[in-house]
Structures are given as C-alpha cells and as structure tokens.
C-alpha cells in the first residue's frame, strides 16, 4: 500500500472521492464480467467434454471397421486402397462427405465402411479441437480479468483509500489548528480588553 502524493486541500479531497467511486464502479463491473465468463467457461468445458466422448466413440467405431477391413482385405489390400485416396487438402473439405467417392476405388464393403467411419471420426475430431481452443482462450481471458480485479482490490482501491484518509486527516488537523489559534487570538483579545478596562 502506498498513498499518492497530493496536497491536502478540499479540492483534492473532492477529486479523490470521485476517483475512488469510479475505481470501485470499475471493480464492480470487472467482477461481474468475471462471473459471466466463468459461467460461460463451465458451459464450454462441458461441451468440450461431450466432444471428447464423441471422438472416443467415433474412433472406437473407426478402428473396429478398420479391423474388419483388415480381416477381409488384408494389410496389403487396405494399404493399396489407402494409396488411392486423395489427400484432402483442407479441414473444411472434411465437412462434406461426398457420397459415392469410396465406391470408386474399392469393391469391399468393409473398406467402404472403414473409410466412412474414419471420415466421421475426423469430423468429431475437428469439433473437439474447436471446443478445446475455445475453452483455453476463454480461460485465458478470465485469467486476465482476475488479474485486473485483483489489482483493483489489492492495490488501486487501498491506495486511494489511504490517500483519502490522509487528506481527510490533514484537513481535520488543520481545522483543529485554525480553531486553536482562533481561540488563542480570542483569549488574548479578551485579556487585552480586560486590562484596558
């Protein structure tokens, strides 16, 4: 904690008071933002957990289909079929499954099934990747907000409060002194008038 270097005047007192109420308002808003983001993070995390389950399930189906294809066509059969598949150039291209594509390079239903299942798995994986990125980004935003809330709570607001107290105390002190010297003046004036009489 540290107080700001300000002269203890009434003008500064008013200024500090309005600054402090502004800082407190900002703190309140940031705190609300933090809570809203946290709520959103919980929802996004739940969504990512669902996406993870879906990936696990889709992949289990895909690997099972691959095993069937391997039994039916052998490693060489599956591998040579795989060689004929065009490498998809873009992730977005995975989104649409072009019907009939797999019929063109294989005569095995097992292979067709494996191809379709791995395409499904890829779609689920893309969804999971998206969900996880969203979660991590949001979590980072929350972290930044928490840091700012803490800075306000632990540094800015206490500093302002201390400064406010200093200015208030100094003003009161000088009021007392003014009163005291007024009293002295009054007393000496009274004495003077008594001795004159």
């Amino acid at each position, binding site marked *: 904690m540290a107080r700001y270097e300000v002269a203890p005047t009434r003008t500064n007192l008013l200024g500090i008071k309005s600054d402090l109420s502004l800082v407190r308002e900002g703190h309140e808003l940031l705190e609300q933002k933090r809570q809203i983001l946290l709520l959103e993070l919980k929802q996004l995390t739940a969504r990512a957990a669902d996406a993870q389950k879906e990936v696990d399930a889709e992949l289990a189906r895909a*690997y099972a289909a691959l095993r069937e294809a391997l039994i039916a066509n052998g490693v060489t059969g599956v591998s040579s079929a795989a060689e004929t*598949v065009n490498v*998809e150039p873009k992730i977005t291209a995975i989104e649409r499954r072009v019907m009939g594509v797999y019929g063109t390079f294989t005569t095995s239903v097992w292979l067709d099934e494996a191809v379709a299942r791995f395409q499904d798995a890829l779609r689920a994986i893309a969804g999971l990747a998206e969900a996880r990125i969203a979660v991590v980004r949001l979590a980072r935003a929350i972290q930044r907000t928490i840091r700012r809330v803490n800075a306000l709570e632990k540094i800015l607001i206490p500093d302002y409060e201390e400064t406010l107290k200093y200015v208030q105390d100094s003003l009161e002190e000088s009021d007392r002194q003014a009163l005291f010297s007024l009293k002295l003046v009054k007393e000496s004036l009274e004495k003077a008038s008594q001795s004159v009489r």
Partner: protein
Amino acid sequence: MKFFVIGDWQAVLGFRLAGVEGVVVTSEAEAATALREAVARKDVGLILVTEKVANSIRDEFDARLYGHGFPLVLDIPDASGPVSGRLTVEDAVRRAVGMNL
C-alpha cells in the same frame, strides 16, 4: 489447412483411408522428430497424435497443446482405446491457465 497424424500403423492407415497424411512412429526419438517436422509444415493445421505416442514425448507435446502456437495438436486414442488416467478437459484447462473451475 490439413490434418496430419502421428501414431502407430493402424491409426496412420485408418486416417489415410479418410485422406489424412501421416507418419508411423515406433520410438520416442521418431515421435519427437515427426512432431517437429509436422509442426514445421506450413500446410498442416491440426496434428493428431495417438495417446501412447503423445505420452512418450509428453513435455514437447504439452508445450504445443497448451501454447499459443500453430499448428494445433490433439491427442487421440489409438486402436486399443483411450489410455487410462488421461487428462480430462477440466484438467487441461487447469493446466493451461492454472485455475480451478
């Protein structure tokens, strides 16, 4: 942006059927090299690494998983299914930002 897969032969073969390139790795050294090479490629957007392979290069993998960099990485189960004791999404968030939900 392309997918790229690093894993055992079944994972690589399976994803190849769906048009995804990949490389089969059988050792930690191969895995580390494969990850570095995949990361260096400009056309790859998402690198899939099977869990056991990812576990063998955990530090390097996590640095990318929780980092800001591109391409992204994701660990996926291999043909034997999800490994036990893997991180949940909640754990991953906690790791990434050091925060409890």
